[in-house]
Structure formats: structure tokens, C-alpha cells
């Protein structure tokens, strides 16, 4: 008999993701009309949300300018403008949730049906336990939970990514035009920095991202190992429940308890490390939450004090700074979600690879090929 092999010894990370995408992309390739319509709808919602964000940013400037002038009529007008803007923003946010979750549900359904078919066909679900490849334990959990995570996250992350890029580009324009240039003196020489807020936000965001990479560079791998340990813990419990009676008689309760205790210990240790990784990244993320608006205000204050910037322009620039900085932080904000997705996609892929091997064996012994 061939020795058991770990799937991760046969395929590397890229190959596993490729195998995941091979099955996951069926949905995007086969139902072009439905998927195309949904994608277009989601992109339109993203664009409308961006448009509203720009409108709210402008409203912010006009409101504070009116406040600075103590102009009651203009303030009342701004209050009236705010209501439809807020209503549209709330409506779009709700619409976006519907669109995203509809796309996620449809994709999950398509991939789950595909994997269930492969898994149940020709009694593969029975043979999977005795298969020559290890790493595909607990298939029911992979079908039920990992597919959900693996199809949820890419839609949210992709939309957030597109939104971040468009937001950053749009608000760069706001920062460039409203912030304008600033004159500073370096070594006795007057230097003019055009669009200084754009450079400011780039430097600030790069610093935060670099800090996040330094503080949290182990986070993704720790999350992946933590998820794997949780899965092994569940699989160990399932194995006892499903073991045949003649085998069950051989093991004592102490043996079983020790195996579960060992798996639990691994889960708890990874959880401890996950906790420390989150503590480290929270130092950066919460620091950023506090500092980003203050840095923006401080960058704008010299121009405001010199009279080159109105109060409305100051608040507009500061708000734009925070928006661009938030867009820059896409990776930072989604680091944990990406790691969760990667882990689940791997687990779905390992199940698919194991099923592929069984299918290949069936074909080798002359049985008709199963549908994929």
C-alpha cells in the first residue's frame, strides 16, 4: 500500500489556489447574463456611492463656510441639502448589501452544488476516508463552512479594492485642488510644494502600512494555522464518532481524551499567538484611527491661519485626507479577512484535489469518468 501523503507535499500554495479557482470560476463563466448583470449593478452602486461621498465632502465645505460667515440662510439651505444626500447614501448602502449578498449566495450555491456532486458521486464520500492523500479530512465542514468563507470574502474584498482605488484617485483631486500649494523655508530658501496634502497623505499612509507590515507580518500565517488546528480538532472528534465498532473497542477513553486534549492544546496555543498578533496590529490600527484626522488638521492649519484656506476648505481637506488614507489602508483593513479567505480556499482546494485523485483512479480502472 502507498504511504499516506499530505496534499501540501504534492501541491504548493499557488497550485492549490489555481485548483480552487478552476472550480470556483464555473459560476462566473457559465451564468454570464446573470453574473454580468449583477457585476454591473454592483459597480454602478460603487460609483454612485463615490459620487455621493464627493457630494458630502463638498457639503462639508459649504456647511463650515456658512458657519464661519454666521450665515443662517446658507446653513438652513445646507441642512435641506443634507437630507436627500443622507437618504441617498443610506439607500445605496442598503442596496450594496443586497447586491453583494445576492452575488455571494449565488456563487456559494454554484460552488457547493459542484463540490457536493463530486463528493457524493460513486460513493467517493465513503472512499475519501481511506484515500492515499491526507489533508482532506472533515469534508462536510469544508463543504458547509469553507466554501461560504471562500466565496463571501472575494466579492467583498474586490468591491472594497475597486472602491478604494476610485476613492483614492477622486479625492487626490480634491486634496490637490483644495489643499493647493504651501510655501516653506528650508535652510533659508523658500520652497513651494504643490499639492502638498497629496504628498502628506501618501507619506502618512505609507508609514502606517509599513508599520502594519512590521507589526503584523505573521498574522496571515498564524490565522491560517489557527484555522487548520480548529479543523483538525473537529476532525479528531468526528473520527471517534464515525469509527467502526471493532476499532472502537481497541481504543480506551483515555486514549481518545488524550488525542482530543492534544488537538485542543494546539488550538489554544495558536489562539494565544493569534491574540498577540491582534494586540500588535491593534497598536497600529487604533493609533491610526486616532492620528489620521489630527495629522490632516495639522497639515491644513498653517494655511488656515495664514488666511489662505477657509474653515470649510479646511474641514473638506481634512475629511478628504481621512478618506484617501482609509482607501490606502485597504490591505491593512482586510489583512485578517484575506488570511481567512486564503485558509478556506486552501481547504476547499485540498478536498477537490483528493476528489480529483479518486476520479482519476476510477478512470484508471476502466469506470466511466465522473462529471466535473
Amino acid at each position, binding site marked *: 500500500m502507498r504511504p499516506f501523503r499530505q496534499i501540501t507535499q504534492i501541491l504548493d500554495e499557488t497550485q492549490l489556489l489555481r485548483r480552487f479557482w478552476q472550480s470556483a470560476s464555473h459560476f462566473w463563466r457559465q451564468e454570464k447574463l446573470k453574473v454580468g448583470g449583477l457585476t454591473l449593478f454592483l459597480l454602478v452602486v460603487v460609483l454612485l456611492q463615490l459620487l455621493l461621498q464627493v457630494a458630502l465632502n463638498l457639503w462639508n465645505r459649504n456647511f463650515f463656510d456658512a458657519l464661519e460667515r454666521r450665515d443662517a440662510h446658507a446653513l438652513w439651505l445646507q441642512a435641506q441639502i443634507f437630507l436627500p444626500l443622507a437618504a441617498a447614501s443610506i439607500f445605496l448602502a442598503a442596496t450594496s448589501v443586497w447586491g453583494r449578498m445576492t452575488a455571494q449566495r449565488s456563487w456559494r450555491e454554484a460552488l457547493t452544488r459542484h463540490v457536493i456532486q463530486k463528493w457524493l458521486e460513486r460513493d467517493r464520500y465513503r472512499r475519501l476516508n481511506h484515500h492515499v492523500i491526507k489533508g482532506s479530512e472533515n469534508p462536510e465542514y469544508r463543504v458547509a463552512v469553507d466554501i461560504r468563507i471562500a466565496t463571501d470574502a472575494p466579492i467583498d474584498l474586490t468591491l472594497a479594492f475597486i472602491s478604494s482605488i476610485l476613492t483614492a484617485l477622486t479625492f487626490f483631486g480634491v486634496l490637490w485642488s483644495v489643499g493647493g500649494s504651501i510655501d516653506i523655508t528650508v535652510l533659508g530658501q523658500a520652497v513651494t510644494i504643490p499639492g502638498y496634502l497629496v504628498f502628506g497623505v501618501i507619506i502618512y499612509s505609507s508609514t502606517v502600512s509599513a508599520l502594519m507590515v512590521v507589526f503584523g507580518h*505573521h498574522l496571515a500565517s*498564524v490565522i491560517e*494555522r489557527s484555522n487548520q488546528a480548529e479543523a483538525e480538532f473537529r476532525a479528531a472528534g468526528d473520527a471517534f464518532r464515525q469509527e467502526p465498532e471493532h476499532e472502537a473497542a481497541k481504543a480506551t477513553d483515555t486514549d481518545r481524551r488524550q488525542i482530543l*486534549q492534544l488537538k485542543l*492544546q494546539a488550538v489554544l*496555543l495558536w489562539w494565544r499567538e493569534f491574540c498577540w498578533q491582534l494586540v500588535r496590529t491593534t497598536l497600529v490600527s487604533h493609533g491610526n484611527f486616532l492620528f489620521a484626522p489630527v495629522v490632516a488638521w495639522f497639515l491644513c492649519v498653517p494655511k488656515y491661519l495664514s488666511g489662505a484656506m477657509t474653515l470649510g476648505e479646511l474641514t473638506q481637506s481634512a475629511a478628504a485626507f481621512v478618506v484617501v488614507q482609509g482607501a490606502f489602508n485597504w490591505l491593512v483593513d482586510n489583512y485578517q479577512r484575506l488570511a481567512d479567505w486564503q485558509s478556506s480556499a486552501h481547504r476547499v482546494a485540498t478536498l477537490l484535489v483528493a476528489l480529483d485523485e479518486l476520479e482519476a483512479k476510477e478512470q484508471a480502472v476502466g469506470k466511466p469518468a465522473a462529471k466535473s
Partner: protein
Amino acid sequence: MHRIMVATDGSSRANRAVDAAARLAKATKTTLIILTVGGHDISGKELRRLALVGGDLSKTLTTMADQVLAKAKNRAQRLGVSDIKLQTAWGDPAETIIDAVRRGKTDILVVGRRGRGQLSGLLLGSTSQKLSNLAPCIVMIVP
């Protein structure tokens, strides 16, 4: 008296407990059971290394526990004990040791006063304190 059990985590204080238990086992010509409750002394640095290389933590914990037992066995053998049994367990140290004592029908349990978890021992009460209160046999605590 038939069985003496010593619990070790590989620390220097636990080594002193192993030595004391070994001398006692030799003098009384009884079986020495060396027990380690694994998984409590792996560092964050080692965990991060394992995460990067995709290592198997369960296997690493088992190997670490085996190493602790092998070293303790060597110490006991050097002191002239030949009838040695090794045992690994996982879980809360005090509860796991008491469970092993009950199952192994141990007559004397030997432990060090403090192992590696010195800070948590100060906060939560040390394993040796719990054992001296709860173990169903004679408990010898080695300072």
C-alpha cells in the same frame, strides 16, 4: 509501595524532583513513572516559526514532550533506577496529573515546587499547591 510518579516539565526545579523521585524509587525498589503534561512551554517565537514554515504543531508538541521524558529518564537511569515508565498527557497540568495518579494507582507523587509557569503560578496558584490539596496520594514537593 508499588509506584512512584514524578511530574516534570523539563525545568531545573522539575529535574530536582526527578532526582528525588529516582532516589526514592531506587531505595524502595519500586516502579518510577515519569509524567509530563505537554504543550505549556512552547514560545511565541517558535509558534511564529512554525506558522511560517507550515509546521505541524501537534507533532512538535509531541516531540518536545518526548524530549522532556527522555532527559528525565536518563537522569533516573544515571541514579540507578531501571524500572521506568514514561507517560505523556495533555491538558490542565494539575487536573491531568491527578487523573494520571488515580488511573496509575500511584502511591507517592513527586513534584517540584515551581515549574516554568512562575508568573501564572503566582496569579492562579501553582500546580504543586493544587496537587498538595487535591491529589489522592502522598505528595512530595521538592523545593
